[in-house]
C-alpha cells in the first residue's frame, strides 16, 4: 500500500500529505477578542495536519503505541484507525490584556504556538 501511494504521488495523483506543521494565522480581532487583548492583534499559531501512515518517519517522534497502531492500521484499515497527527512541542507567546478589573496585565501563555507535529 505504501509503495502504491508513493507511486501515485509521483504521477501527480492528489493524496493527503504526511503529518506536518501547517500555517494557522490567528487574528484576535476576527475572533472578537480585541476588546480585551491589547497586543498582539494576531500571531502565527500553526496547526498539525496530515496522515500518520506506515512507515512512520522518525522525525515524527511516534510513541510506541502510535507505531503499533500504525502497523495495525496498515494491515487492516477497517479494524484500526491511523494514529493522530498532533502537536508534540508547543511554545508560549506574550499577551498584553485587560483583566476583569480593568487592569492591564502582561501574561506569558503556554502552549500557544505549534513548534513540532508528530504521530501519537
Amino acid at each position: 500500500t505504501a509503495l502504491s501511494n508513493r507511486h501515485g504521488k509521483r504521477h501527480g495523483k492528489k493524496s493527503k500529505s504526511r503529518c506536518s506543521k501547517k500555517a494557522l494565522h490567528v487574528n484576535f480581532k476576527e475572533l472578537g477578542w480585541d476588546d480585551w487583548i491589547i497586543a498582539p492583534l494576531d500571531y502565527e499559531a500553526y496547526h498539525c495536519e496530515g496522515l500518520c501512515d506506515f512507515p512512520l518517519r522518525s522525525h515524527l517522534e511516534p510513541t510506541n503505541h502510535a507505531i503499533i497502531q500504525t502497523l495495525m492500521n496498515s494491515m487492516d484499515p477497517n479494524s484500526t484507525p491511523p494514529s493522530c497527527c498532533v502537536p508534540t512541542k508547543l511554545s508560549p507567546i506574550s499577551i498584553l490584556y485587560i483583566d476583569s478589573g480593568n487592569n492591564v496585565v502582561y501574561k506569558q501563555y503556554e502552549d500557544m504556538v505549534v513548534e513540532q507535529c508528530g504521530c501519537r
Partner: protein
Amino acid sequence: FQSAALISSSAPRRNRGTRIPYDGPRSPKFLKEIFASSPSLSRHRDEFKDAVVPHDYMISIYRTYSAAEKLGINASFFRSSKSANTITSFVDRGKDDLLHSPLRRQKYLFDVSTLSDKEELVGAELRIFRKAPGDFQASQPGLYGIHLLPCRSERLLDSRTIDLQESRKPGWEVLDVWGMFKNRHHPSQENQLCVQLRGTIGKSETEIDLKQLGFDRNGRSQQEKAILVVYTRSRKRENLFNEMKEKIKSRGSRWSEEESGLQFKARRRRR
C-alpha cells in the same frame, strides 16, 4: 469597532492570507452586524476600552519579552521579571484632596481584588511619576528623602533620595512594596491596598510638602498616574478560558438585566 489593541510592529506577519475558516452564523461579518445593530452593546464595548490606557511601562514589558520570546529566550529568565510569568498593573485610585494645603502625606490606593490566590506572588513595586516641580524657587535645591509606608503603620517599606538640583527632569520613582505582601495574607483577601508617601529634607525627620518635590496628583493624565506592579507566577498551566470566564462574570454584574438579553446571545455566539 475601534480597536483597543496596540499594533506590534514586530508581530509575525507570515501567511497573511491564511484565515480561520468561519462559516454561517459564526462568521466575523455576522458578528459585526450584531454589534452594529446593538447600540447599547457597542457603547459598553467602547466604554470598557476607553477606560483603560496601558501605561508605557506595561507596553515596554510586553515589547521586550515578546521580542525575547521570538529569539527563543524565556522572558521569565529576565532579572526584571523576577521569574514571573504574569505582571499586573493596578492604577492608583487615590486623590489629593487638599488643593492649597501642604501635602505632607500622600495616600496611594489600589484595588487588588483581581489578584488570584492561585498564583504565587514573587514581587511588587510602586511606580510614581514625579513631575519637575513647577516652582523651583520654593523648592530649595539639595537632597530630599521620600519614604513609603503602609497606611496603617509607620513601618518603612522603602525609601529613595532625590537630588532636586540634579533631578529637574520628570521621571518615575520606583519603590519596592514587596514588604506589604510578605508575612501577611494574600492580597486578594483584602481588596484594597493602601500605602502612603512622605517626603523629608535630607536625612532629617522634617517633613516637606510633596508638591514641592513634584508629586502633586492634580491634573495628571492616565499615563502619569502611579501604578502598582505585581509580579506573579502561575502554579499550574492556565488556559485562556480562565480569562474569558472572568470577563463574562465581570460584565454580567456590570450590565443591567434589561440590556443583557441580546448581549448575552451575541457574546455566546462570539465565544
